[in-house]
């Protein structure tokens, strides 16, 4: 089963990479003209692009070269930044990873925490919070956070990435919170619903009637059993989280992969756009395969099926 899942993952990655590669040919007009649109390349540069993309070779060969190139870390050249795509992305990756990592911690801790709280409390407060939270776009959150905690109170910097780990983290707080809100609301909702469903199950009544303390019952029998949907949904949210870094990084003027995606679209730097799209999609596929593989540990019934 392990092998089958990984095989399916490889196949999905192959298909998605093909889609991303061939998307270039969806653009209207000649691909070469599209790639250099908005620039006035010298004949030498044009020839270099033709050679790099192998427009002289048949389509399958071009795809194969592109694919094997990427597997070796060669994502092509950025036209705008006059550097290899790999180095451009690589230099911005740490900042984005820190942002995503920080936000993930916040999402999991507060999302699951609020979900548990909402399931154990009778009131509707958490439901209202979740409905509104899921509707607050990260750019709105960014603006509010900047104007309140950045401008009015001056607690956090409102712009930039910072230098040195401590300073970087300080710069990262508001963006991470802005990125967190929507996804936290979704995780809270799933956790609450899943907990409520488990709370009503007979096996919970059984252990309660045996005299186990409420906290033990909640922790070991309700929360533990409710984890399945939470993990599944969290896995599905990862791609949205990665794309949302584009919004947050742009709003806070940060130098990350997300803002790179936006400026690359703006400057028609297609190789960079293609590489980032592929990275996001590949991350989604890999993460969800891992979730699939880990799932039997959460719910042993799946192992039998």
């Amino acid at each position, binding site marked *: 089963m392990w092998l089958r899942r990984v095989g399916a993952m490889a196949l999905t990655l192959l298909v998605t990479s093909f889609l991303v590669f061939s998307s270039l040919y969806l653009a209207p007009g000649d691909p070469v003209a599209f790639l250099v649109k908005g620039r006035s390349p010298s004949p030498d540069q044009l020839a270099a692009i033709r050679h790099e993309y192998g427009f002289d070779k048949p389509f399958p060969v071009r795809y194969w070269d592109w694919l094997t190139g990427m597997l070796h870390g060669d994502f092509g050249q950025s036209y705008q930044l006059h550097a290899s795509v790999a180095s451009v992305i690589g230099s911005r990756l740490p900042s984005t990873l820190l942002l995503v990592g920080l936000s993930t911690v916040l999402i999991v801790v507060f999302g699951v925490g609020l979900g548990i709280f909402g399931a154990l409390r009778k009131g509707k407060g958490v439901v209202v919070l979740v409905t509104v939270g899921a509707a607050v776009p990260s750019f709105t959150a960014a603006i509010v956070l900047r104007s309140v905690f950045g401008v009015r109170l001056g607690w956090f910097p409102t712009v930039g990435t910072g230098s040195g780990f401590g300073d970087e983290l300080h710069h990262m707080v508001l963006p991470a919170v802005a990125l967190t809100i929507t996804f936290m609301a979704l995780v809270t909702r799933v956790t609450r619903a899943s907990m409520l469903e488990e709370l009503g199950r*007979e*096996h919970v009544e059984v*252990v*309660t009637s045996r005299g186990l303390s409420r906290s033990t019952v909640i922790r070991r029998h309700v929360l*533990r*059993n409710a984890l399945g949907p939470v993990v599944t949904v969290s896995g599905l949210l990862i791609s949205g989280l990665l794309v949302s870094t584009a919004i947050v990084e742009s709003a806070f003027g940060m130098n990350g992969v997300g803002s790179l995606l936006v400026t690359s679209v703006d400057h028609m730097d297609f190789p960079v756009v293609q590489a980032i799209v592929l990275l996001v999609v590949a991350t989604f596929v890999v993460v969800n395969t891992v979730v699939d593989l880990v799932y039997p540990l959460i719910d*042993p*019934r799946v192992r*039998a099926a």
Partner: protein
Amino acid sequence: MNTLLDIKGLTVAMAGLGRPILDEVSLAVHDGEAVALVGESGSGKSVTARTALGLFPGGATVSGSVVVGGTEVVAAGPGDLRRVRTSVASMIFQDPRAGVNPVRRIGDFLTEPLRRIQGRSKAEATAQALELLGAVGMPDPPRHLRQFPHELSGGMLQRVMIAYALTADPRLLLCDEPTTALDVTTQAEIMAILGRLRRDRGLGILLITHDLDLAASVCDRVYVMYAGRIMEAAPSAALTSVPRHPYTRGLLGSAPPLTGPMPRLAPIPGAPLGLAEAVSGCPFAARCAHVVPGLCDATTPTLERHGDSQVACLRAAELIDETQGEGLR
């Protein structure tokens, strides 16, 4: 004789319902005694059993008294409830498939209360779990400890549930339709295990079932329940030889005709009373062949002693006289 479970005048009601879920229920189980509580679904028999562990329906108002092993459970604090649940009474549920946490191993399920409540070490708890699995007739206890619930059959899981109930070393075992979800051969095995445990450990048993024949063959005394009320309470022998309440006779499938020819083994006409329906007088009046308009739907019968039995029927005395010579069953 020591009384393990003593329910007196227990009424459980919820707003928005037509009648109370339980209405003035009184019931007792003594040390080492097997008592059955019989009724159709919705009669309140499961609710009654659960009250012995302080499990009341959410939002219900409760009055009356439930004393378990000397502890009053109605309005009890967490400490008293915990004492009852962890050392006096345990429960076996109807559907073992739903009753065992599906994501934990059998060993984890069984040792959890031993370690967390009884305070055993891991090794002690495991040893005791193995012993209990053997006591309920599991073929290969060490292997079962490592198994997940979905790897066991329903009958095997019910044995696990019994073993789980025994981890409390209880004096009272509440069995809520323990065989309903199982096939017929397994039912007999489970009942045999319960019978053996009762003998070996001197357990008091409250058996909840809809099967009056089973109840009478296994238990010392039987309570018959209908629409949240006890209709008849009698020693098993007396109940089957001289069922006094029309409802009991209906359950036995032997309601003899009073006048004229009627087919034997007639089912009880009509359907059990829903929770939304209001009652005036005898709750069984609407389905009773012997109903007297103006009497049965006006006055609520209480349990009265007739011979060995206690019967809640306004016409109990005359009905017994009328049916005496007819040779029941």
